[in-house]
């Protein structure tokens, strides 16, 4: 459980990143953290795991104040960063040294994931490509079995088969006691995994809603619809977001939905039932 209360943050006083954000993130979900470049997605993840400290407000992660970086807290959190900064040792050495720091670390699971990703565990990390190092880091992250897993652009650098593997692994990894937050611009890589959206915009958490809740309010259609809330032209015709007045279920197009929010600041207000939006 992550409880964020009135969180504000800035790097420089005149450059606000977050202004009075509140949210509660529960276990058992894969959260998709979206936002334009520079909006503060990585900063948000860093505040949750304690790499950065709130200027005002509080963040409580699994009952801990992350900024104290207590060992009990750290041994139940793993952050897969976009840049992979693993040491240049062999994978085995990396595993031997760091694996024991995580009480729920599963060595055989780590090895299974490496096999799935087609990475040889006898390799030296420094001799691996960026994508392979990313795979090692993802394998290690999943094998730690921590209850909070933060991922910043996890599919960057992964080849196409590995992206498929990644989706399968993540789908298996989610459990009622785990919270997973994935920040990404490559939404098509993971859109089937995400069951809750967090969208950062204008210093606030503009949207904090489950895909199920959103599905009840909007639907997606291809064609020409004058009553559409948002329309985007694509090579194979217009795609639209419409108010879901008849409870129809359509596949949720996260990319279109995100574009609607980014291109039309008033889009969220247009949604009839906006009870879950930030005030």
């Amino acid at each position, binding site marked *: 459980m992550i409880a964020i209360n009135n969180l504000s943050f800035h790097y420089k006083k005149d450059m606000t990143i977050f202004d009075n954000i509140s949210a509660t993130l529960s276990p058992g979900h894969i959260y998709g953290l979206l936002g334009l470049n520079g909006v503060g997605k990585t900063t948000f993840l*860093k505040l949750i*795991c*304690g*790499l*950065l*400290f709130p200027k005002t407000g509080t963040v409580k992660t699994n009952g801990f104040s992350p900024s104290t*970086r*207590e*060992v*009990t807290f*750290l*041994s139940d*959190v*793993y*952050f897969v*960063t976009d840049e992979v*900064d*693993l*040491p*240049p*040792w062999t994978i085995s*050495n990396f595993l031997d*040294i*760091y694996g*024991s*720091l*995580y009480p729920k670390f599963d060595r055989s699971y780590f090895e299974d994931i490496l096999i799935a990703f087609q990475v040889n565990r006898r390799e030296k990390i420094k001799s691996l490509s960026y994508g392979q190092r990313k795979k090692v880091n993802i394998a290690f992250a999943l094998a730690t079995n921590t209850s909070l897993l933060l991922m910043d652009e996890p599919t960057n650098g992964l080849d196409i088969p590995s992206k498929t593997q990644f989706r399968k692994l993540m789908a298996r990894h989610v459990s009622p006691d785990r919270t997973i937050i994935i920040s990404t611009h490559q939404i098509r890589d993971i859109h089937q995994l995400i069951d809750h959206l967090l969208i950062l915009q204008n210093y606030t958490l503009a949207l904090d809603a489950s895909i199920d809740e959103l599905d009840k309010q909007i639907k997606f259609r291809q064609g020409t619809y004058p009553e559409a809330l948002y329309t985007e032209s694509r090579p194979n015709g217009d795609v639209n977001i419409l108010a879901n007045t008849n409870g129809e279920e359509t596949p949720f197009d996260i990319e279109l939905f995100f574009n609607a929010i980014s291109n039309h600041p008033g889009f969220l207000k247009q949604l009839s039932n906006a009870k879950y939006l930030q005030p």
Partner: protein
Amino acid sequence: MSKKLHISRLKIAMKELFQSYKLLLYTMPLFILFFFAVLYFVPGGIFYNRLFNPAAFPNQELWIQALLSTRFDERIFILLLPIAYTMILTWRHFEVLNKSERINLTPITYLERTVAITLFCVAGLLLGTLCFILYDHISVWWFKHLYYEQVLHYLEQQGDLYPSIGKSTVFFTIPIWNIGMISIVVLSLMPLYFLSRVFFKKYSVFLFWVLMVGIWIMLFSALYSLRPQVVSANIFPIRLQQVIPVIISTILYIVYWCLAMATFYHKLKEKEI
């Protein structure tokens, strides 16, 4: 064991350091040996001339005279090399501590990290010092084996039946006391180096030396001002013990060291990445 310092995690923090920098650590003895060789065979020096310019010593007598009159006690400055080497060894580690998200989220406390890096540096300095002592003894033994008999014979011929050979020649090792004093000075610099690496993002080496020189100037100014006035008429040199008793200076040293390390620990702990 407290939550902040656990032996198994401390071992992992040490392993992490050793695994990262073991190659550099292994090469330190070779590096010191190289500088010993450079010192003895520096161009223009007596050993260099003996080997490459035999005309400089046309007879054995001149060579023996050169051996007796040439100072080699400046080899104590080789002891500064382990400091430079330890700085190089740990340079990257501090960078990682300052910037790496992974390292700062690894379940190892900052106290364990502080203790680990301190032990690693002390071990590096100790290794360097032991190598120095070993090479010093071996070189002195070797020079005595080669020339000591000849030197004594030469001095006897000069009518010096109770020869007194200069302590700064190649026939004497650097006194352990001097090595100990240098080690104490080196250890006093260590926390300053640590602090400079976490306090200053840029130019940390430059600022470290500025800080160090500043502290030494302040320290010596303070000691000078504390000097008893009557001593000015004294012909004997003023010793530190005359100004501050040994026990007090030892306590001051330990307090300074602990305070500097505590500052380092807290700065590390409160660092945002």
